[in-house]
């Protein structure tokens, strides 16, 4: 099946621990998404980012704030 690009909200972090904390909190709260390698549009240089559907952006930002997760940026990208 050919690859179809879709809009996604992508969250990046200063360290992998914060990325894994994000995954754990999202799983706990039933927020869909998954860890992906950081896309080159954001930064070339490895690391993990959290990718989810754009509709979940607000919910993610609330959770990030409530849990004190350290993020570098929140982006909307076609991936």
């Amino acid at each position, binding site marked *: 099946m050919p690859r179809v690009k879709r809009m996604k909200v992508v969250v990046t972090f200063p360290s992998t621990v914060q990325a894994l904390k994000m995954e754990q909190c999202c799983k706990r709260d039933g927020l869909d998404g998954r860890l992906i390698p950081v896309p080159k549009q954001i930064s070339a*240089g490895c690391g993990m980012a959290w990718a989810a559907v754009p509709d979940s952006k607000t919910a993610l930002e609330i959770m990030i704030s409530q849990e004190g997760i350290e993020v570098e940026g929140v982006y909307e990208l076609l991936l």
Partner: protein
Amino acid sequence: MIYLDSAATSLYRPAQVVEAVCRALTTLGNSSRGTHTAALTGARMIFETRQMLSNLFHGDGPEQVVFTANSTESLNMVVKGILTPGDRVVTTVMEHNSVLRPLYEMERQGICLEIVGTDDLGRLDMAAMRQAIDFGARAVFCTHASNLTGNINDIRKIGGWCREAGTLFVVDASQTAGIFPIDMQEDFVDVLCFTGHKSLMGPQGTGGLCVRKGLQVRPLVTGGSGIKTFDKIHPLQMPEALEAGTLNGHGISGLKAAIAFIQEQGMDTLRIKEQNLAREFYQRAQDIPGIRFYGDYSVMERAPIVALNLGDEDSAEVSDWLAREYEICTRPGGHCAPLMHRRFGTEAQGIVRFSFSNFNTMDEVEATISALRNY
């Protein structure tokens, strides 16, 4: 075989530790190096272990837990990562060479080192410690328990003095992590150094340090971090700042299972069992002719260690005889604790150290006492 050398390393381990390591060997990718299934399996396991350790020691969160190969690496990292020439530093005669040698190395580079002594039972001179802290120091490096005598230090009191004086408090928990309660907040600990393979019952090659948030430790080693590949400098973010290169994921899997075992069984239950074994051994050994003990056995709260000599017999000969004749494993010699031996005057004779695990039994205690009576 009767293994009474758990202060050197745990030989008896929960079955789930072995199973976890075996499983990890065939399922774990490289943590923080990509997001495929195997890499994430490794990353999640290591993250969860950080959380467990931070909870165990009441640290400042998983990002402040750094993995190393052992306590020695952790202590070197802290000694060389927070001290600079001109600093005044306080430590004790109860320390292991993993603390003393890095400090001596820094002394040659210009730190001023004060070493607080003990009384005849090997108990820390708390008045002298208080005075040394009040005099002003960059940091205090103090063991939680002597690896030779098992004597415990009151880290809460020392930590309180350090916090009042604005002195960093670094604790070596090699003999106590996992089996004695340690609370970095209540005990005012800035850096806690631990090894995974002793009282925590994990595999060798695991250890780490918990660092108070906001305290910058300069890295000993730099290199691959899984993030910020194109930067010329190693990342400053914790824990990557202090973790260059691939972590020992296989070992950490075992450590995670060991912590889970301790939580299931209850730290207090395990510690009390070990202390009872050591106490029984001490009490039953008292009437052996010529026996001499080292340490304070008047208190219950001590690491499960009994340190002794038989008359003027060479500790190496006694330990070797126990191993050869009875397959009883003990540790003779200096135990990497040169100042404690100097304090006891046992540099030449050494000391025979018996250290107990919660997997030991009263029958093994009895068999060891019988063996000692035959020497």
